[in-house]
């Protein structure tokens, strides 16, 4: 399965951001910004070169310490990982420039705010490590790197609501990763290996595997804020500094989703059943409806966006039932819709990452301009901040899933897979979610076009902030353009496109 050539790129993807993160520690606030920006640029460059190499070779591997699995750890840059790393790099570089400008223009931040740079570069390295790792325990360590630095970023504003939300997030993160680690312990005890590839060959149905599956799934769902374990997300993402909200909602929750997807597709197939897929799909559908409904009822812009994350993450869960074959379906027949479902998963991840980070960045601009993010802050936005209003519009369209945006492509593929697989009952949930999303997006846009009162404040905003938000919105809109190339790259290697074949004795009847 892994006949990719060995290369140093996977190692550099982790080492470069960490080198710069350590460098930033030595500077005071201003120097930290410049060294942090340098680190972001360097990491983006390395990501681009690594992805280019992966496209050329079809994928890359790196045996850490020169040891073969199961004794050593394998880093594996396959097409799926490459796409996620690309997403991280694009979001990361835009948010880095935004953050540089934002942290410099705000003077009421606590002194610790310049710790943003080391923490963010560590987070970036952790995310890259997570996407590359092919080892269950190494994934745990990477999850912890990501979790602790994410919470560290979340509490940078130093305000009590942010601290409270941060502590709740941290407790969920610790509990989730311990639950995951218990699953790892069971799998290691039963199969004597931690390597994903070896494990997928060795795994057998049975009580142990089922229990490990349940523990790891629940743990990762809690960390990804999947319904019904999403309770920590809105207060956390609603109270952070804008660049941090953007990073956490776009990237951090996707990390755990990526692991979940890999585990289900590569390891746990034998213990899954059609019913299990349906169950997790129902969670997804409920998340879509509930999250969108909550978003409609919020008063503060950042809370609308945060609740919308819960809903958009629900779409990702709805992919799982479509990947699991119903009893008596041939794999060859299923390839029709499994490929669409995988495309939907990847495109929903990408378009949500770009659109959501863009929205949070735009919300940050509005907070600077108006001093708050209540509904009144949006009034007459089109005239006052045309660029930001345009970014919100583009990102909102992509979230809603209107053609011809990236979000549209994701939702269209999801619908296509649902219909083709005969599981038509997911279609109403997708459509209802889109309508509700349209509701809050147009609520925001209506306010933006409404005439404002003259006493609405309009403080100056550095131009760089608005451009970063717009860049990401454009990205989320236009990722549909290279879709064909991206999908053909992804299809060159498993697990993309493959169906999950349930075994005997799975988790649900």
């Amino acid at each position, binding site marked *: 399965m892994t006949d990719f050539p060995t290369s140093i790129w996977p190692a550099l993807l982790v080492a470069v951001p960490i080198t710069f993160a350590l460098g930033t520690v030595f500077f005071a606030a201003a120097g930290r910004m410049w060294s942090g920006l340098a680190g972001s640029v360097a990491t983006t460059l390395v990501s681009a070169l690594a992805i280019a190499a992966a496209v050329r070779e079809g994928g890359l591997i790196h045996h850490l310490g020169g040891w073969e699995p199961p*004794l050593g750890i394998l880093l594996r840059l396959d097409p799926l990982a490459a796409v996620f790393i690309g997403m991280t790099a694009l979001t990361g570089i835009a948010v880095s420039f935004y953050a540089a400008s934002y942290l410099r223009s705000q003077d009421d931040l606590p002194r610790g705010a310049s710790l943003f740079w080391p923490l963010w570069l560590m987070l970036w390295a952790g995310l890259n490590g997570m996407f590359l790792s092919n080892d269950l*325990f190494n994934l*745990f*360590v990477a999850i*912890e790197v990501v*979790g*602790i630095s994410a*919470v*560290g970023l979340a*509490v940078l504003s130093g305000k*009590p*609501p942010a*601290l*409270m*939300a*941060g*502590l*709740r997030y*941290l*407790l969920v*993160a*610790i*509990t989730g990763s*311990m*639950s995951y*680690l*218990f699953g790892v*312990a*069971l799998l*290691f*005890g039963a199969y*004597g290996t*931690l390597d994903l590839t070896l494990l997928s060959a060795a795994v057998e149905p049975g009580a142990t595997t089922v229990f490990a599956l349940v523990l790891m799934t629940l743990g990762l769902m809690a960390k990804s804020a999947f319904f019904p374990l999403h309770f920590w997300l809105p*207060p956390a993402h609603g109270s952070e500094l804008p660049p941090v909200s953007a990073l956490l909602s776009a990237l951090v929750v996707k990390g755990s989703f990526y692991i979940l997807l890999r585990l289900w597709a590569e390891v746990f197939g034998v213990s899954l059943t059609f019913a299990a897929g349906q169950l997790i799909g129902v969670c997804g559908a409920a998340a879509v409806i509930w999250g969108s409904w909550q978003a409609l009822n919020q008063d503060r812009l950042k809370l609308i966006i945060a609740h919308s994350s819960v809903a958009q993450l629900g779409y990702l869960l709805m992919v799982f039932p479509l990947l699991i074959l119903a009893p008596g379906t041939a794999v060859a027949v299923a390839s029709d819709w499994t490929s669409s479902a995988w495309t939907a998963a990847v495109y929903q991840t990408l378009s949500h990452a770009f659109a959501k980070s863009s929205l949070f960045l735009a919300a940050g601009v509005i907070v600077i301009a108006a001093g708050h993010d209540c509904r009144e802050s949006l009034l007459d936005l089109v005239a006052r901040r045309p660029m930001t209003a345009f970014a919100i519009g583009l990102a909102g369209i992509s979230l809603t899933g209107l053609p011809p945006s990236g979000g549209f492509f994701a939702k269209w593929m999801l619908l296509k897979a649902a219909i083709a697989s005969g599981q038509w009952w997911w279609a109403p949930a997708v459509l209802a979610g889109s309508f509700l999303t349209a509701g809050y997006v147009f609520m925001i846009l209506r306010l933006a076009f409404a005439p404002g009162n003259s006493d609405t404040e309009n403080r100056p905003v550095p131009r760089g902030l608005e451009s970063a938000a717009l860049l990401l919105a454009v990205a989320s809109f236009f990722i549909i353009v290279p879709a064909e190339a991206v999908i053909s790259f992804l299809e060159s290697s498993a697990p993309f496109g493959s169906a999950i074949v349930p075994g005997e004795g799975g988790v649900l009847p």
Partner: protein
Amino acid sequence: MNAMETYQIYLTASAVLFTTGLAGVFMARHFFRRIVATKIMGAGVFLSLVSFAERDALEFADPVPHAMVITGIVVAVSAAAFALALARRIHQLTGEHDFTTDS
């Protein structure tokens, strides 16, 4: 009782400890207790790993789970220290010590 091997006794204990910690995280209200509960949960996980290591012992016990547990302990303590710092800061700023007033 003699049919039960050493590692099985500790495995059973690990299951109970994990559940205790999990219940504690959700049911306790004071930040402090929740943090201690995550540590107990972790202890359950580590106990199961070390038990497996003892089961797989040849000349010496399986070193891989031991290394995993040492790594895990350090990581868990770092996270717990951070959580404690957060809890204390919240307590200083607001006087709260549980989540009741939070939305």
